């Protein structure tokens, strides 16, 4: 199968949109985009406008089988504190749905505090 993009908006409980035609749900802070790449699935964490993702504490997806996937990107802000490009992780296998717990440390633009977002997928 060629690359298929599926966007899932992460809101209060989850989660997964079946196709690109699905209108996005009201924006949460983060959304998870999955793309099938060969035998694997690339998970990309997209932040809402005005939200920065903490690069010092790489976002994590704790899978239901106990594995932990960490999101990363080589492009950081000049202070190396935040991702300048959406971080991603490669999940083995081809998935249209992921189950687990997503953790990310996020900061609002201009805000002086950060917060942890924990979402059940």
């Amino acid at each position, binding site marked *: 199968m060629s690359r298929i993009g599926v966007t899932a908006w992460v809101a209060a409980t989850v989660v997964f949109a079946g196709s690109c035609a699905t209108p996005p749900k*009201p924006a949460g802070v983060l959304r998870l985009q999955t793309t099938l790449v060969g035998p694997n699935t690339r998970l990309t964490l997209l932040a809402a406008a005005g939200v920065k993702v903490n690069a010092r504490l790489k976002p994590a997806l704790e899978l239901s089988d106990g594995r932990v996937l960490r999101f990363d990107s080589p492009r950081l802000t000049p*202070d190396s504190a935040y991702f300048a490009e959406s971080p991603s992780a490669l999940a083995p296998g081809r998935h249209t749905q992921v189950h687990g717990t997503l953790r990310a*440390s996020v*900061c609002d633009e201009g805000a002086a*505090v950060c917060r*942890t*977002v*924990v*979402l059940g997928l």
Partner: protein
Amino acid sequence: MSRSALLLAFSAGAVVLGTLALESSSRVQAQASPLLASRPDRRPARPWKNESWLNADKPLTLEGLEGKVVLLNFWVFTCYNCTNTVPSLVDFDRKYRDKGLTLIGIHTPEFPPYAGEHDKGNVAQKLKQYHIEYPNAQDNDSKTWKLYGIRFWPSFVLIDKKGVIRYEGVGEFHLNDRNYKLWDGRIKELLAE
């Protein structure tokens, strides 16, 4: 529509909007500009019971600090806002330790242990990196975080000589900026009592 009905409708709308804005977060919701927050109602500080300490020969207790002004700083080394504030805290420690201020870092991890925040060696390395000489407690189980109802990194609790919480607040500040001066003034006020 009567005035009271309008008010009720507006309030209900605000509640709905507020609810929609909430996230499924186990810990925190950031609010804009909470820096100046302080509780007008004074309440006794609650005794923390952290067992693992750095920069301290033995665990510090609230009871043992009677007669001291205590500034608790809830932080974690992976928090940029927290580490940006450290120079100001180091400055407070240097200026006021001999005058009766005890600054205590409460190091509370954001993520589970796999992220490395729970590791005492990692914390020790960061204390050295940021020239932190004041005591730090490892709050790996978040008990002190929860005891004080903390929701943000970084957060601050200022306790007077009698063990009463006098000021609380959150958010990054820098040497000699407005909020640095605010906290500086609060510390001086309590030291003078």
